[in-house]
């Protein structure tokens, strides 16, 4: 895929955030903070890194992307719609009765590889896909986006043991480390530090980046695998609610929809008026 300027990334990510806010405002439900913290990572993944064909969501050689933190579905649905996996007007039905886009990411949606929402499943599912890719020498890679909170789950670490044992250098774990989980900061609820050392010790070639710095995101994602024969882990330091001043770093915006006034203010900050 061709090069993209930082300005272009910024514009794409802004557009995605606008869509996410509108979806969640319309639904008056869903997880806004986690969707916004992952928006920049997804912008780079879907516009520069993942080898995909929206017209053929089941193309065998496609890269796999798994949102293991299934509650952040709004931002993935927004990006998939932008890329043309399904009509954009589906976004208007997000979370609503009979919608194609159910709460928590669901495999029935074109472009979605795995249903998640109960945390700690995505990395294991990704390992299964990576295992087939490796054994059959298929070209695809498997990218799994995890939340920091789901690093509390024991099953995440079961998968973390498995991938290096089988030398799955075609799987990449990305931790959206926004430092806030459901009802408290990571530090208060169950401290993960030293997080990078843990992944490293489990056998993952690990790098830490600023998850809102497009140059750093792109550089990391384009250099995988970081070491041949080992899975790669990217700890992306992010800000929950990124892009909307009154949501940034605020626990309250883990699961809270904006009202009309808050939406207008948020959109204004993103350059959309009226």
């Amino acid at each position: 895929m061709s090069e993209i300027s930082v300005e272009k990334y910024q514009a794409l990510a802004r557009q995605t955030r606008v869509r996410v806010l509108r979806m969640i405002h319309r639904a008056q439900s869903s997880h806004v903070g986690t969707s916004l913290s992952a928006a920049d990572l997804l912008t780079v993944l879907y516009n520069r890194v993942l080898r995909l064909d929206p017209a053929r969501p089941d193309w065998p050689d496609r890269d796999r992307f798994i949102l293991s933190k299934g509650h952040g579905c709004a931002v993935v649905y927004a990006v998939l719609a932008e890329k043309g996996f399904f009509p954009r007007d589906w976004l208007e039905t997000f979370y609503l009765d009979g919608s194609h886009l159910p709460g928590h990411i669901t495999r029935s949606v074109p472009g979605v590889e795995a249903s998640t929402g109960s945390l700690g499943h995505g990395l294991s599912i990704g390992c299964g896909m990576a295992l087939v890719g490796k054994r059959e020498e298929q070209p695809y890679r498997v990218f799994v986006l995890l939340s920091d909170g789901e690093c509390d789950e024991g099953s995440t670490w079961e998968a973390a043991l498995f991938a290096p044992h089988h030398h799955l250098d075609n799987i990449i774990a990305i931790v959206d480390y926004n430092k806030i989980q459901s009802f408290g900061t990571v530090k208060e609820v169950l401290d993960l530090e030293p997080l990078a050392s843990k992944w490293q010790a489990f056998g993952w070639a690990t790098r830490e980046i600023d998850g809102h710095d497009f140059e750093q995101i792109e550089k990391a994602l384009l250099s995988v695998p970081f070491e041949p024969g080992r899975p790669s882990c990217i700890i992306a330091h992010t800000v929950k609610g990124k892009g909307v001043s009154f949501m940034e770093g605020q626990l309250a915006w883990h699961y809270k929809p904006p009202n009309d006034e808050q939406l207008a203010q948020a959109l204004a900050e993103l350059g959309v008026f009226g």
Partner: protein
Amino acid sequence: MPQELPLREAYGQTLVDLGRENPDIVVLDADLSSSTMTHFFAKEFPNRFFDCGVAEQNMVSIAAGLAASGKIPFASTFAVFAPGRCFDQIRMSIAQPGLNVKLVATHGGISVGEDGISHQSIEDLSLICSLPGFTVIVPADAIETAQAVRAAAASFGPFYIRLCRPKVPLVYGDDYRFNLGKAVTMRQGGDVTIIAIGILVAAALEAADDLKREGIDCRVVNMPTLKPIDEEAIIKAAADTGAIVTVEEHLEHGGLGSTVARVVARHRPVPMEFVAIKDTYATSGKADELLQRYGLTAKDIGQAVRGVLKRSG
């Protein structure tokens, strides 16, 4: 006495045959392959066998990833661990997306014996039958096991097959043909129907022999496919015989008895009795001692039949 064979061995050997026939068959285990007998497959197809270690949750979701990549994964461990240990993974990773994963759990029921309650799975059928889209099979002997495993491989969708630990007497001959979703009338009879699954089908046949001597004419039905259950066979049994006794090595709650009762209540209410483990956990002991202690023998089935006949008038 009929020949006794372990169901697990029939499973393990059938996997090898399937592996030879279909390169998409892959097998996972959680550090128990010599007990679940997936080790036969591991030996012949080391490249298509994945020992996940003592990490059943991971194993189940990996199986989902393999199925999503076009493979036909068979994942095995003890029934207390799958579905017991990793119900959430089975629910989300396999059942909800309807993926083509075959869970084959061994060591079901109290016939596990001396290893005690941590290893006696008496809740697994209730758990797994609660999941929409799962097909659930409880084979009665080694011959049925081999064919059920083949049927699971040949049908798309999530399957759960429950096997037991001990050797089990053959109740079928080599000419038996397993039909997915169909009950098997093992013996015709007009006074009462005994519907049994798994290891206790042999006990049900023994009970029917004993009752015959008392002049009670029992129909014996094996219900190897617990879900989706053969409603037609149940309704016919109720209509023809007017009383039903269900027999299973599982808690009374949520297994064969409750499923049959639901069909009977809706379509053809008749008196029923339930030979099953009551609301309790078992102790340690030899398999036959435990089956006796918890009321799962031919004698107990006989008592239940006499009881239900009193109520059916």
